[in-house]
């Protein structure tokens, strides 16, 4: 009687390929892979964006170097490019916008977080979010047809009359210019300051307010001496965030800034911003130095917003962590 070969020993260990195939049939690995690919594509796109900006601006970067940022001539015909008037215009309009928007926005945020009952606060916040959703070109249309005549006929002459001794309020009242662009930007950035500041203020622990009130402070004193001070990093973060948005704002600014690449001390004077010149000149820039200069401007804008956004995020996260640490509810 021969031995019946019943047992053949333990089954041979599955090869690596077989293991992989089995795991893939499970579906989880596929899902992981697919979602990973899509998430990684974001990294690829972002890297590609920086890369494209970098290589397409190579010509002017190598020709002008750092001088590009500080020269004032912009002469496509003779091939001399300097970004200073645009950087100046961008900074000035943003500064004007912040001077108007920060007090207004902070005041509204304080009202919404400290004073208003929760239901009113959330409905009003919704309305303010709607303001943030209004397209830029519509702000531009309103600025060209309503704000500009108002500036030219009423506001600028008034400022000239009362504060005309200041160098920022001299010169003819064009209607178009830094001041008008700054005011439009202010209206556009206020909603961002309000929404971020409101959240930051709401994250301040209630105990701090109660402690202050318990010591006999008025509501206002509690607000500005305790709550705002506690949340000041976050509020500063919201200001940086709105600054980053204002820097990149294109359409509304292009329509009212006057489109003149000059640096002027007066706010009434026409000027130019980085985003505006790119929007106006990009399509007609023949490949070569002109296009490279415009793309380098885009690179400058990218870095400015990148840095500001980075700082803002760190500040806001820092404040919300602090607040979340202490008990609130």
């Amino acid at each position, binding site marked *: 009687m021969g031995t019946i070969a019943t047992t053949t020993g333990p089954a041979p260990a599955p090869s690596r390929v077989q293991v992989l195939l089995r795991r893939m049939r499970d579906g989880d690995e596929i899902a992981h892979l697919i979602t990973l690919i*899509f998430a990684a594509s974001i990294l690829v796109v972002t890297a590609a964006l920086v890369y494209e900006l970098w290589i397409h601006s190579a010509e002017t970067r190598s020709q002008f170097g750092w001088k590009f940022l500080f020269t004032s001539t912009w002469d496509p015909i003779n091939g001399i490019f300097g970004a200073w008037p645009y950087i100046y215009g961008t900074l000035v309009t943003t500064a004007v916008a912040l001077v108007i928007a920060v007090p207004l926005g902070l005041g509204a945020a304080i*009202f919404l977080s400290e004073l208003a009952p929760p239901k009113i606060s959330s409905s009003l916040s919704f309305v303010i979010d709607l303001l943030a959703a209004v397209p830029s*070109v*519509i702000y531009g249309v309103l600025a060209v047809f309503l704000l500009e005549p108002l500036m030219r006929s009423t506001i600028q002459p008034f400022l000239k009359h009362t504060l005309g001794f200041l160098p920022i309020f001299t010169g003819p009242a064009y209607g178009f210019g830094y001041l008008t662009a700054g005011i439009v930007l202010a209206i556009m950035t206020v909603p961002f300051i309000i929404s971020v500041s409101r959240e930051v203020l709401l994250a301040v622990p209630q105990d701090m307010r109660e402690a202050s009130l318990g010591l006999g402070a008025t509501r206002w004193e509690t607000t500005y001496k305790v709550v705002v001070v506690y949340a000041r990093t976050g509020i500063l973060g919201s200001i940086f965030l709105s600054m980053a948005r204002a820097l990149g704002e294109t359409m509304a600014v292009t329509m009212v800034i006057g489109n003149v690449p000059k640096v002027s001390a007066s706010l009434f004077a026409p000027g130019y911003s980085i985003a505006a010149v790119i929007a106006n000149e990009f399509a007609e820039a023949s490949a070569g130095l002109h296009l490279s200069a415009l793309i380098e401007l885009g690179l400058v804008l990218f870095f400015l917003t990148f840095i500001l956004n980075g700082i803002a995020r760190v500040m806001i996260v820092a404040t919300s962590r602090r607040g979340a640490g202490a008990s609130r509810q």
Partner: protein
Amino acid sequence: MSLRMIWRKTVNVIMLSLTGLCALVTVSALFLILGCLAWKGASSIHWSFFTNLPAPVGETGGGIANAIVGTGKLLMLAALVGIPVGLLGAVYLAEFASSTSAFFVRYATDLLNGVPSIVIGIFAYTVVVIPMHHFSALAGGFALGVMMVPIILRSCEEFLRNVPRSLREGAMAVGASKWKTIATVVIPAASSGILTAILLSLARVAGETAPLVFTAFGNQFWPHGLNQPTAALPVVIYNYALSPYDDWHRQAWAAGLVLILLVVVTNLLTRLLLQRQAMARR
């Protein structure tokens, strides 16, 4: 009551009313904008406005039909790019990612979110228009899609994370694998949130003009196919507003009204959707 006390109380009242005034000013700005657009634009809204093609320069009677179709096409293309990347990226972050890869993906997303729209337009120009050698709806749609990704991703991730653990654990307890859980339980549970994120991002990019100016170019006629230039609503508004023709100004106001109604209605709709879901949860 001492003088100092009276002073403090007065300051309190004044400053608090000032903050209320700030809030009032900001809120009324929106109503002012809507009111202006309605007042100046409503009179030009009639059927032919929506169905006519633009008339030659200087003649009256043109319409924005091709701009509306063009915007629709661009949004469709943008959705094709933005929704898969945004949604699946959010699923990755919420379900699969380790903390290092999550950090990088989130960082890139936030970076992309902060990039000014005109720079994204430059990117689309270098990546789509230059190789293709002409302007097209594809280039414009790509630019808008890239802008949509961060918006969809951040909101969807939050909604996905908010799905209660009990649901996931319940599904796994009956033997569903991870991807089955995600596909059949988590995503449907977050579906109204995901829908709102998609709608809001579409409404947001519908109004973007800057990236379209040198990608989609513009078209006097009906846009044929996807690789020809196309008119778009915000670009038409921009061009008409800067022109000297009164008829074009009227059309710009009317088109602006159409655009802002689109945005407002979308926002209201999404808020309603979210409230309904919140109530259903309770």
